[in-house]
C-alpha cells in the first residue's frame, strides 16, 4: 500500500520479527513477574525467620501479630506525635531557662563601689 510517501508492507513482518516480539515481551513479563513472586514470598520468609529468632532468644513462644509492619498512616501518626512532643518540650525548656531565677551570693569583686571609674576625691 502506498499513501503519499509512506509505504505499508505487512510482509516485512517475517517470522523473525514475530519471534522477537513474542519472546521478548514474554521474557520481560516473566522476569518482572518472577520478581513479584520473589518479593511476595520474601515478606513471609522474613516474618518466619524473625519468629524463629525470637523463639530461640526467649525460649518461649511469643504471640505474634498477623502483620508486624506498620502502615503509612500509622507511621505518619507516630511521627506527628513525636514531633509535637519534642517541639513542646523544647518550648517548655526555653521557658524554664529564661525565667529561672539565679541567686548569687554577694562578692566585692564584682561590686561597682570598687570600680576603677570612681574618681578620687582631693583633699
Amino acid at each position: 500500500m502506498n499513501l503519499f510517501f509512506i509505504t505499508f508492507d505487512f510482509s516485512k513482518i517475517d517470522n523473525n520479527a514475530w519471534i522477537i516480539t513474542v519472546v521478548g515481551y514474554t521474557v520481560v513479563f516473566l522476569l518482572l513477574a518472577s520478581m513479584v513472586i520473589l518479593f511476595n514470598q520474601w515478606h513471609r520468609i522474613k516474618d518466619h525467620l524473625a519468629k524463629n529468632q525470637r523463639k530461640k532468644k526467649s525460649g518461649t513462644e511469643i504471640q505474634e501479630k498477623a502483620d508486624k509492619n506498620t502502615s503509612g498512616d500509622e507511621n505518619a501518626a507516630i511521627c506527628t506525635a513525636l514531633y509535637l512532643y519534642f517541639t513542646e518540650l523544647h518550648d517548655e525548656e526555653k521557658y524554664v531557662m529564661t525565667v529561672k531565677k539565679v541567686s548569687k551570693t554577694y562578692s566585692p569583686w564584682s561590686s561597682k563601689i570598687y570600680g576603677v571609674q570612681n574618681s578620687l576625691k582631693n583633699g
Partner: protein
Amino acid sequence: MKLKTFFSWPVILVILFCVISQTAIASGIDVNQLWKNTGFHNLELGNLLMILFGILLIFLAVRFEYKPLILIPMGVGVIIGNIPFAHEAAFPLGIYKEGSVMNYLYQGVLKGIYPSLIFLGIGAMTDFSSLISNPKLMLLGAAAQVGIFVTFLGALVFGFPLQESGAIALIGGADGNTAIFLSSQLANGFRTLPDGTIVQNLIGPIAIAAYIYMALVPVIQPPIMKLLTTKKERRIRMKPPRSVSRFEKIAFSLVGLLLTAFIAPAALPLLGMFFFGNILKESGVTKQLAGTASTILIDIVAILIGVTVGASTQADVFLKPQSILIFFLGFIAFMVATAGGIIFAKVMNIFLKKENLINPLIGSAGVAAVPDSARTSQIVGLKEDPTNHLLGHAMAPNIAGVIGSAITAGLLLGFIL
C-alpha cells in the same frame, strides 16, 4: 534630514562594514573567502527551519516548563548543530567531523556512556519502597512495554530495516535515555545491514521524539486514561503502602541486578548502573557518592547529552520523511503503552479481592517517563476525588517501567545484533 536621523544604527553598521572590508582589502585579506566562511553564505532553508525548531524547544521549556532540564540543552544543541559553515573549513567543526570538539562530546552518546551515567543518577534518587510494599504493581510496568513491541512491528511495516525498527521501538518505552542507548547501538549511521547498506543515523530523531512525548505526558495521557476507565474505577482507594526496611531495599537492588543482568546481559550498562546507584543510596554508608550521582553528576551528563543529541540533528540528517514517520510511530507507541498499563490494571482487578483493588489510573504510569506519568495519574485521580492521593502507588509501576524498558532494550540488542 537631521544628522541624528541619518546616523541611525543600520546606517552606522553599513558604514562600519564598508570601512572594515576596505581595510581588509587594503591589507591583502581575501574578503570573498571570509564571506564564504560565514554562516550567512552557507545558510540553507533546512538550517533555518531547524534553528526555528530549536527555538521552539526552548520556548516549550520556558513557557510551559515541559522537561526544561533536557529541552533547553537540546534546543540550544539544535541551534548549535544547525549553524551553517563551510564544510571545507581548515579546522573540524561539525559534530560528525572527526576531531572537532562537538565530536569528542558526541562520543558519550555514540558509545552509550551518557545514558549509563544518567541511569546511575536515577538509581541514586529512586526509592523502591512503593514497589517492594506492593510488588504486584510491577506487572503494570511490564504490561506497558507492549508499546515498544507494537512500535517495533509498526516500524517494520513502514519499511524500516530490523535494526532501525528495534531502535525506533524504544520510543514506546517513554524513556529517552534507553532510546538513545539503543539507537546509538542499532541506528548510529555506522552499522552495516545484511544487504551491505549502512543503517541510517536515527539517534537525533529518536531522542527528540522520545523527549518531546515525555514532555507531553500531561497532555497525551489524560484523555486515554478517561476513555478507558469509569468514574467508579477512578475513585478506587488503594491500601496504604507498608513500611519497608533498609535491608529489603538493598536486597531488592541486588536481586534485581542479578536477575536482569543474567537474563538480559546487554542491558547491563543501564541496569547495572541503575541498581548500583540505588545500592549507593540505600546502603546508608555512601551518602556522599549517592548525593553526587543524583545531583552534580546527573546534571553534568544531562547538559552534555542534551546539547550533543540536539547538535546531532543537522538539517541534512533530521529533515527527512523518516523523521516524520518516527514521530508518528512514537505517538502511537506512547498511546498503546498507556492503554496497555491501564487495561492490564483492570484485568488484574478481576482477580483481586475488594480491599486490594488497584486504581487503573496508575496503570498509565507503567510508561517509563519518571515521574511525569506518575504525577499525571495523581492529577487525574485528584480531579475525581480530591482526597485520593495516587502518587505513591503510581511510582511503583513507573519505576517498574524504567526497569522493564531497559530489559527490553537489552533483549532487543541481544536479538538483533
